[in-house]
C-alpha cells in the first residue's frame, strides 16, 4: 500500500529543527542579521536573513553550494552600511531552509524568484552571487532580465567540470564509480543524518572544503550554521545532499550564453585553487563576458574571496553597483 505524502504534513516533517543558538563564538566584524523570516516557495520554507535598513534599495546576496546565508555575516554588513537592504536566503536543504524531497538547479531558481517576489516585486535589484549562487543568478539574468539592475558574479563562472583532466578510459571509469557511489548513497540516505561532533571537529571537517579560511572563522560558522543536539553539533545541510554528482549538464554551456546578458555585469575570478572552486581562468572566459561587462582577476586569493578579503570585495562591488538610490 503506497502512502502519498500530503504536502502540508510533509513540510512539517521535513523542516529541520530551528535551534536558537546562544552563539558561543564571535568573529571580528560579524553581525547577526537584522531581520529573519521565512518565505513559502510552493511548499518549501525558505529562510531569509536581512542586513541594513528595510527601506533601502534591495541587494540580493546569493550563497554557493553547501554554504548558507550566515556565511555573509561579515561581508553583508559592509554592503548594508553603504545604503543597501541586503537580502540573503538559505537554498532549499541548506541552513535553516526546509529539507525537501528533490534538489535541482531549476528548483533553486524558482525558490529565488519566490524570495525576490516577496522583497522586490516588479522592481529591478542589485545582485551579488558567489560560486553556484553566481551561476544560478546568471541563469536568472538570462531568463528574467527585468529583475536585475546590476549583477556581480564572484567566482561563479564555470568553464569545465572540477577535477583532473583524465584520458577517455579513465574518465569513463571515474564516472561509473561516481554513479555507483551516488546510487549507494541514495540507498542509505532515507535514514541518514549528519555526523555529530564538537565545534572544533565540525570546523576541522569544513576546513577540508575551506582550507584557506581561519579556524576562528570556521568555528564561528559552526555556531551559526550547525545545530546543537544532545550528542553534539551537526551541520544543517540535508544529509541526502552530497558533493560530486553526474548528469548531462555541461558547465561551459551556460558560459556560452553569458555574452547575451544585458544587465551591467562584473565577473570576479581567483587564482588560488581550492576544492570548492571552479578553477576558471580569465583567458578561458573573457570572450564570453557581456559587451559592456567587466572581468577582474585576483591571482593570490581563493574561491571564498568575500570571506578572505571582505572589505576589498565590498569596496569593489559597491563601486561597481553605484549609488543605491
Amino acid at each position, binding site marked *: *500500500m*503506497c*502512502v*502519498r*505524502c*500530503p*504536502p502540508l504534513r*510533509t*513540510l512539517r516533517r*521535513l523542516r529541520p529543527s530551528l535551534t536558537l543558538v546562544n552563539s558561543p563564538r564571535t568573529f571580528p566584524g560579524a553581525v547577526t542579521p537584522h531581520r529573519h523570516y521565512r518565505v513559502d*516557495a*510552493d*511548499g*518549501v520554507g525558505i529562510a531569509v536573513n536581512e542586513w541594513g535598513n528595510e527601506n533601502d534599495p534591495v541587494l540580493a546576496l546569493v550563497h554557493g553550494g553547501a554554504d548558507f546565508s550566515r556565511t555573509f555575516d561579515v561581508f553583508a554588513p559592509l554592503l548594508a552600511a553603504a545604503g543597501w537592504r541586503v537580502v540573503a536566503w538559505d537554498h*532549499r536543504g541548506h541552513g535553516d531552509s*526546509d529539507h*525537501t*524531497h*528533490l*534538489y*535541482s*538547479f*531549476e*528548483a533553486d*531558481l*524558482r*525558490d529565488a*524568484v*519566490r524570495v525576490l517576489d516577496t522583497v522586490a516585486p516588479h522592481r529591478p535589484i542589485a545582485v551579488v552571487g558567489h560560486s553556484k549562487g553566481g551561476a544560478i543568478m546568471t*541563469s*536568472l539574468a*538570462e*531568463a*528574467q532580465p527585468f529583475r536585475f539592475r546590476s549583477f556581480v558574479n564572484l567566482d561563479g563562472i564555470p568553464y569545465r567540470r572540477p577535477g583532473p583532466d583524465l584520458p577517455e578510459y579513465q574518465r*569513463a571509469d571515474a*564516472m*561509473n564509480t561516481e*554513479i*555507483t557511489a*551516488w*546510487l549507494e548513497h*541514495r*540507498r542509505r*540516505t*532515507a535514514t541518514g543524518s549528519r555526523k555529530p561532533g564538537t565545534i572544533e571537529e565540525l570546523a576541522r571537517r569544513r576546513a577540508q572544503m575551506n582550507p584557506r579560511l581561519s579556524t576562528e572563522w570556521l568555528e564561528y560558522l559552526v555556531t551559526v550554521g550547525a545545530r546543537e543536539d544532545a550528542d553534539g553539533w551537526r551541520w544543517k545541510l540535508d544529509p*541526502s545532499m552530497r558533493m560530486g*554528482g*553526474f*548528469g*548531462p*549538464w*555541461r558547465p561551459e*554551456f551556460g558560459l556560452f*550564453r553569458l555574452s547575451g546578458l544585458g544587465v551591467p555585469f562584473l565577473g570576479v575570478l581567483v587564482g588560488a585553487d581550492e576544492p570548492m572552486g571552479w578553477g576558471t581562468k580569465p583567458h578561458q572566459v573573457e570572450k564570453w563576458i557581456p559587451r559592456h561587462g567587466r572581468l577582474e582577476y585576483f591571482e593570490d586569493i581563493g574561491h571564498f574571496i568575500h570571506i578572505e578579503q571582505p572589505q576589498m570585495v565590498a569596496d569593489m562591488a559597491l563601486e561597481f553597483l553605484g549609488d543605491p538610490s
Partner: protein
Amino acid sequence: MSTITLRHNRIELALHELRPATDDCHPLLLLHGLGERTPDTVPTDVESWSGSIWGLDFTGHGKSTIPVGGGYSAEILLGDVDAAINHLGTVTLIGRGLGGYIALLAAGARADAVHGAIITDGPGLTGGTYESSVPLVARLMNQGETPDPYALHELSRDVRAADYALDFVQFSTARSELSEPINVAAKYQPAWLEAVAAAPGVASLPIGDALNLYR
C-alpha cells in the same frame, strides 16, 4: 495486481506486481512514459514473458509520492529504478519514452543487475536539448494529484545528450554478460537515441524478439 511500497530517500515508490512468474525466469520491470503510470494489466506486447511482471510508478507519478516544489531529473528516476532493483534483484527492463531513457541509464549504472533494457516509443522520449535548457522559472499549481505538473514540466525539458547516453551504453556493454544488452525498439529516434541505436552492443529487434533474447 498487488502493490508494495519502496523507499527512495524521502520518496515512497509504488511497485506493482502485474503477474506472478510461471517459471524460474527473472522478473520483467515495466517503466512507464512521462505523465503515465503503471498499467492495471499486462500489456499485450509483453504477455509472452514467463517470469513475474512488475511496474514501477516513478516519483510524482501514479501512486508514488508527489515531491514538494519539484526538482526532478532523469538521474532521480534512475535512483527510483535502483530501489526497485534492490528489491527484485536481476531484472529485464522495458521502458516507454522517458522510461526507455531511464532503462538505458539503469542498464549502464547497474550492468550486473539489468539483464537487458528495451527502449520503446512513448511520452518523454525526446527530452530537452542544451539549446532549449534556458530555465523558464515557471510556477505551477499542484492539486495533490499525479502526475505532478513539475514532473511534466521538468522532465520534458531534461537534457538528453548523445554523448552522455553513449557513456551508459559503454558501461552496460563493458560489464553485461549479454553481447547486446540494449535494444532499441522505438520507431521514432531523437538524436540521442539514434546515436545509441548505432552503437556497438545495441540491438534493434522488435519487442517480442528482444524479450526472447533477454529471457
